[in-house]
C-alpha cells in the first residue's frame, strides 16, 4: 500500500498526515512537493493536507489549486485513485473544482479549534466503511474558513446521492446543512474540515482518524 501527501508552500499538516497514515496503516508515505508535475506510481491514496497554503491569501486554497501537481492529482482522481483533502486540502479541492461548493469564513468570523462530534452520514464510502456501522465519531477541527457553502440544488444533490459523508452534531461554523465532509460523485475524492490526522492515537484523544485511513487503504 502506498500513499502520497502533497506539500504546498504553507502546508503545515503534511508531516501529521504522513505520520498518521504510517502509524495507522503501515503504508509507505511519500511527500510530494507542489511543483512536481507527476506523482509517484502505484498510489492508493493521495492526501492534500491542512495548513495555510500560500498563507490562505486571496481565498483559502485558491493559489494552491493552480499548483503544477494538481493536474496530476486530478488525473489520478479520474483514474479512481482515492484523494482526501483535509481542512485546507478540502478548500484546495473545491477551488480546483474537484468537489462542489466552497468554504466561506466561519459564521462567527473566528478561527475555532475544538474537539467535535461528527455523524457518519454515509458509512458506505471507501473512507468510512471501517466505522462498521458506527454512526458517531470524534475528531478535532481547527479552521477559520470551514463554513461549507453550495447552492440549494447542489446541496439537495449531495444529500440525495449520499455524497455527504460527515455532519457536525453541533455546527461550529455555520456550514450549510451542518456538512463537515463530502465525497465526489464517484466517491473517490473526499473533502473534510475535521482532522483525521490528529486522531490516530489514544493520547491524542481519539483514534477515529486512524480508522478512516485504514478503511481507504483496505479498499485499495
Amino acid at each position, binding site marked *: 500500500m502506498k500513499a502520497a501527501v502533497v506539500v504546498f508552500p504553507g502546508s503545515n499538516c503534511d508531516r501529521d498526515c504522513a505520520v498518521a497514515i504510517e502509524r495507522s496503516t503501515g503504508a509507505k508515505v511519500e511527500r510530494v512537493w507542489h511543483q512536481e508535475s507527476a506523482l509517484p506510481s502505484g498510489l492508493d491514496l493521495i492526501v492534500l493536507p491542512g495548513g495555510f497554503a*500560500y498563507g490562505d491569501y486571496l481565498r483559502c486554497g485558491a493559489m494552491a489549486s493552480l499548483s503544477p501537481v494538481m493536474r496530476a492529482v486530478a488525473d489520478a482522481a479520474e483514474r479512481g485513485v482515492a484523494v482526501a483533502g483535509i481542512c485546507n486540502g478540502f478548500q484546495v479541492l473545491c477551488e480546483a473544482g474537484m468537489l462542489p461548493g466552497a468554504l466561506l469564513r466561519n459564521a462567527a468570523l473566528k478561527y*475555532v479549534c475544538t474537539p467535535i462530534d461528527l455523524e457518519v452520514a454515509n458509512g458506505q464510502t471507501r473512507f468510512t466503511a471501517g466505522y462498521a456501522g458506527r454512526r458517531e465519531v470524534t475528531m478535532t477541527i481547527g479552521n477559520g474558513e470551514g463554513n461549507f457553502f453550495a447552492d440549494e440544488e447542489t446541496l439537495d444533490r449531495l444529500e440525495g446521492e449520499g455524497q455527504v459523508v460527515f455532519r457536525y452534531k453541533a455546527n461550529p461554523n455555520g456550514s450549510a446543512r451542518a456538512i463537515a465532509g463530502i465525497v465526489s460523485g464517484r466517491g473517490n475524492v473526499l473533502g473534510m474540515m475535521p482532522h483525521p490526522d*490528529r486522531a490516530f492515537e489514544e*493520547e*491524542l484523544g481519539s483514534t477515529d482518524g486512524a480508522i478512516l485511513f485504514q478503511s481507504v487503504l483496505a479498499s485499495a
Partner: protein
Amino acid sequence: MIAPAKPMAELALEYGLKSDEYDLIVRRLNREPNALELGVFSVMWSEHCSYKSSRKHLAKFPTQGPKVIQGPGENAGVVDIGDGQACIFKMESHNHPSFIEPYQGAATGVGGIMRDVFTMGARPIALLNALRFGDPSHPKTKRLVSGVVAGIGGYGNCVGVPTVAGETNFHRGYDGNILVNAMCVGLADADKIFYSAAPAPGLPVVYFGSKTGRDGIHGATMASAEFGEDSDEKRPTVQVGDPFAEKLLIEATLELMASGAVAAIQDMGAAGLTSSSVEMAGKGGVGIELDLDAVPQREEGMSAYEMMLSESQERMLAVLKPGREPDGRRIFEKWGLDAATIGHTTDTGRIVLKHRGQVVCDLPLAPLSDDAPLYDRPYVTPAKPPRLAPAHIPAPSDWNAAILTLMSCPDMASKRWLWEQYDRHVMADTLADSATAADAGVVRVHGARKALAVTSDCTPRYVQADPYEGGKQAVAEAWRNLTAVGAEPIAITDNLNFGNPERPEIMGQIVAAIEGMAEACRALDFPVVSGNVSLYNETNGVAIPPTPTVGAVGLIQDYGRRAGFKGLKAGDALVLIGETRGELGASLYLRELQGREDGAPPPVDLALERRTGDFVRGLIQAGAASVVHDLSDGGLAAAAAEMALASGVGVALNAPARDPHAQLFGEDQARYLIASADPDGLIAKAKAAGLASEVVGVAGGEAFLAEGLFNIALAALREAHEGWMPAYMA
C-alpha cells in the same frame, strides 16, 4: 523640518541617546559620528539592545546547571533533554506595538520569538502567551483583547506551531500599557545548534527572507531632513507580519542548516540589519562589510539609514561557509524567498557600510557592544507590607455568591473564548493544552516516549505588594505547575516588564524582583537560560504593576506517567498536600470580594516548596497519582472547583472549623490537591516524607459544596466560570 546642518549632538538626543552617551561616542571615535553612525550607536546602546539599566542586576540570576547547554546571551536558551536532543526556548515582549496595533503587534511578537528559536537550529514545537490587559470596563480593553488574540492565533495557526498554554490577567494598572509576552519552545539535536558568532573573515554574508521596507523605524528619527527628499512618503510604518513568509523561512532555514552551509546565523529582530550584523561580527571577533545596494528592497529610494534601522519582519542574516552560496540559492529559490549576498566578513574589527558607491559608515565594533553604557541606577528597596491575619479580613456574608463571583471574575474565568482561537493540535503531538485541565501544556518529543511540559506564570498583585516575594513566587509557581503534571523542571526564561527604571522606586521593584527570582532559581535548581526586559511601561507617570513573567520548561520521561486535574471520580478523596495557614494578603479573594489590594503576599518557603514538589512528582512518576492540581489564585476553593468542573463530578469540601474563608481562599504556597482512592495510604506517604497532608473533601454528586457554607449546582458554577468571557466579548 530640521535643517540639514543640525548639530550631531542635538540629533543624538532625538535618537534617544543621553548627552553624556554622545560624548562617550565622540571620545571613542575621536571624531563626530555621521547621522547613520549615530543611528547605529543609538540602536546598539538602546535599552532594548544593551540592557543598560538591568544588566548589572540580571547578572544575579543563576544561569548554569548540568542541563544547560547555552544560557543567556544567544538568541535563545538551550537545555539538554537527553538522547542527544536539546530544547531551545525564549520569551519576548511586544507590549508597545500591541497597544498601537493589537493584531499586528501581537502577530509580529509571535513571529519574532519563533525566529529567535529556529535561528538556533530548532524546529518550533510549542507557543505560549502571557497577556495582561486593562480593566475590562476600560473603553479600549475589549478591542485590544480581540485584536491581540486574533493576531496571536492568526500568526501561530498559519505557521503551524501549536499554542498550548498561557495566562491572561486584567487589571486597571494595564489600562494604558498592555503586556503581550510570547514564548516559543523548539527542539533540536544537541550537536546541531547554531550560533551567531561569525567564525572567520572572508566569508559571504547572505540576507534571506522578505524584502526590507520602511517598517517600524522610530518616528522621532524620521523627521530629519538629512534622510529624506519627501518626508511624507517616508513616514515610519507599522510592522506587518507575514506568517506565510515565516513558515517558508523556517523550512528554508532548517534546510540550509541541514545542508551544512551555515557558519553563523542570526535573525533580524529589533533594529534589524544593524544589530544582526554588529552582533555576528562582534561576537566572532571579526569585521563586516556590507553593500547596502544589494539588500532586497520593497520600496524605492531607501536610504542607508532606513535599511539599517528597518524592522521589516521575516528576515535572516547568515554567514555561509566558503563556496556554499549555491546551496543557499537552491534552497531560497525552492521556498520562494528573496535572498542576496550583501557582503562579507573581514579581519578589521570594524563595520563598514557602502551605499551607492560610497562608504557611509565605518565604525569599530568593540565600542558598539563593549562600551555600551551600563547604569547602576539608584533605587529604593520597597517596603514590606504587613502580613494580614485572617481575623482582620471579613468572611463572605453570602458564600454561594462569593464562590460564583470568584470563579467568574476576569482573572479566574475560563479563557476558552481566546484559546479556542488558537490551533492547539497541529503537529499532532499535543498531550495537554489550554483545554485539557492540566497545570502545564504538554507536547511530545516527536517520535519518542518523552514529552516537554511548558508553562508561563506571574502573579502581578504579589509582585506589586512585595517585589522580592512576588519574584520568588513567580518562579515557584512555574516550577509547581510543571511538577503538577509530573515533569522534572529544567530551566526558565523570563520577561521582566516594568515601568521607568529612571525612577528609584521602579528600579527598586526591578532589583528586588530579580533578587527574589534568583533566590528561587537557586533553591529549585531552575536556572535562567534566556529572557527579555521591557521597561518604560508607563503612561503619565503611572507604571504598570511590576510583571516579571516566568516561562518554564520541564521534561516528562514517559508520557504515560503524567497528571492533569480532570478525571476525578465519585468516591475519590481530595487530599491536600502542604500547609495552610490562611494567607489572604494580596489574594484574589481580598481583591475580588473585599475590594482591597493590600497586605503581604503569601511567603514562599523554598525548601518546603522543593520537598513538597519532589514528593508529588514522585507519586506521579510512580503511577500513584494522576489527578493533581496545584493551588494558586483563589486557593483551595478555586482549585477544587476547577477539578470538579473539569471532571464533571461534584465535590464536597469539609467545612473548616476555624477561619473557613482563610482556609478555603488563602493562597498559601507549596500546596497540591490530589485525587485518591486510598487517602490513608497517601497521607502515610506524605507523613513519611515529612509533609503535612489531610483529606479536605470527597468527589461525588452534582454540586460543589461545603456543608453549612455553600452549595452550588455544578451547572451553575460552570455557567459562571465559562460565561464571563464570551459575554464580555460579545
